[in-house]
């Protein structure tokens, strides 16, 4: 009993001091970043890593474009900050992020363990729903059993489609044949497909921040949550390609 009491005072006395110190230090700016102060970013330079992944990030002759580029440009404008864009592969960018060389990485990243191993992902700001659509004028099948569905050559939904009984057929030029397609809802809308109500898969879209930059995370998350009309913007970007 004796030792327990002394242990409590040992832990608790300093902890009370720490709480006071924390509150005094923090004031109203809470939480703060661990590595790069927010004051440095506000009106300063943002180092944004990006890897091409249309329509999220598109590399054009006029510079970067795409949904996530627009989102970050709006954020930088709100913060009076200028952006330094850094093109590279997703792996290199995430590694650089973990060394605190970048402030943010975009490139149509989705929630997975690769991202969270090296970086702090935001909460999903948008969910891409993979649906099955048929060309206008074609009747929507009552179920997917035995239906041939075209999918992009590189995809991660073939297995989920098979589970529904459909026969996935990888096709290079999607949307040019008169056949059913499995793709995100914004793609199907942009290409004027009629959409059935089978949800094959979802991608949770996130951006990657350095670990421990909690004030920055809060700022980015607030910006993402208030960013309007993501679905429509994606449709417009896809239709414009």
């Amino acid at each position, binding site marked *: 009993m004796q030792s327990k009491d002394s242990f409590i005072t040992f832990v608790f006395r300093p902890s009370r001091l720490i709480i006071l110190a924390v509150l005094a230090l*923090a004031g109203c700016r809470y939480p703060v970043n661990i590595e790069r102060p927010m004051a440095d970013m506000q009106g300063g330079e943002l180092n944004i890593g990006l890897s091409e992944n249309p329509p999220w990030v598109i590399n054009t002759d006029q510079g970067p474009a795409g949904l996530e580029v627009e989102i970050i440009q709006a954020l930088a404008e709100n913060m009076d900050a200028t952006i330094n864009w850094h093109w590279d592969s997703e792996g290199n960018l995430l590694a650089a992020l973990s060394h605190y060389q970048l402030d943010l990485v975009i490139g149509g990243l989705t929630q997975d363990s690769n991202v969270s191993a090296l970086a702090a992902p935001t909460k999903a700001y948008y969910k891409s729903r993979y649906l099955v659509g048929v060309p206008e004028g074609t009747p929507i099948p009552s179920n997917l059993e035995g239906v041939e569905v075209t999918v992009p050559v590189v995809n991660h939904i073939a297995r989920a489609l098979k589970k529904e009984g459909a026969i996935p057929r990888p096709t290079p030029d999607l949307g040019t044949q008169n056949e059913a397609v499995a793709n995100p809802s914004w793609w199907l809308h942009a290409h004027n497909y009629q959409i059935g109500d089978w949800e094959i898969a979802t991608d949770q879209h996130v951006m990657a921040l350095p670990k421990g930059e909690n004030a920055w995370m809060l700022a980015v998350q607030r910006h993402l949550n208030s960013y309007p009309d993501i679905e429509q913007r994606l449709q417009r970007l896809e239709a414009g390609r």
Partner: protein
Amino acid sequence: MKIRKLYHLPPDKQQDLNYLIRLEWWNLAFRISIVSVLALVLGNSQAMKVAWLEDMLSLIPPIAFLLAVRFRKRPPNETYPYGYQRATIIAFLCTATALSAMGLFLLGDSLLKLVHQEHPSIGAITLFGETIWMGWVMVGVLIYSVIPPVIIGRLQTKAAAKVHEKTVFADGKMSKADWMTGMAAIVGVLGVGAGFWWADAAAAAIIALDVTKDGITNLKEAVGDLLDRRPHFTSREKPEYMEEALEAELRAMPWVAAASVRLREEGPIFSGEAFVTPHSNDDLARHLKEASQHLNNYDWRIYEVVVTAWPNEEHIPSPANATPP
């Protein structure tokens, strides 16, 4: 085969025990609620993780106790002629082992995070359309997790000492450690928010150290019980000196020339053997039985002391008997 009689607590102690059982049900219910709420806001904080795992673990002692109490009500039978009283010790050992193992694991995990200089990310959460820092929610939940253990822990240790239930007594100490854990986790989360990356892992390490310490103390106690160490009362470090008292009782009987007693704990109650040297062999069997009955009724904690006759004077008086406590 000689099968023991079922142990019955005296009515007032039975009432105390019933109260203790009710208390443990409440305790279990509160802990389950705390564990579920904490799970929702865990996030990336090491201190939160440690506090949560400790709370998860703290479900074991009440469950073990409630099971043991149920189990030991079974009367002794041909397969288990000594009865089921020691189920309590098994429960106690389980609790202590789980506590020590988890404490060590978490300590290692937290120190590793300190070595790797991991910067904990505590993100944002959107509640009712408002995006706020997750840390505030964590602190709120932690404050909830701190209140019940403070109150229940106090009641537990008091009630457990009355009926000598070590599992609950140890559990009560754990409750006390619980609120400290909660406070440390709050400090950790707030520290991270203030920009100290190490605050979280350091708080977690301190908590883990405390969990380990609790675990090892209880492990020692449980192993001691299993090795039939002489009885120690719940809340005390020193032995109970019940043997000396029983020896004095025996020696006060006119037919006894010398007596020595040894006792062990069987959960909340004591059993053992008494060796007496009679002045003569007249009526010896009856004397022995009466002596045994007398001893069994001497204190509520005594379950069964078997009295046997010992031919010579080989008694070694208990050291404390020379100078009674």
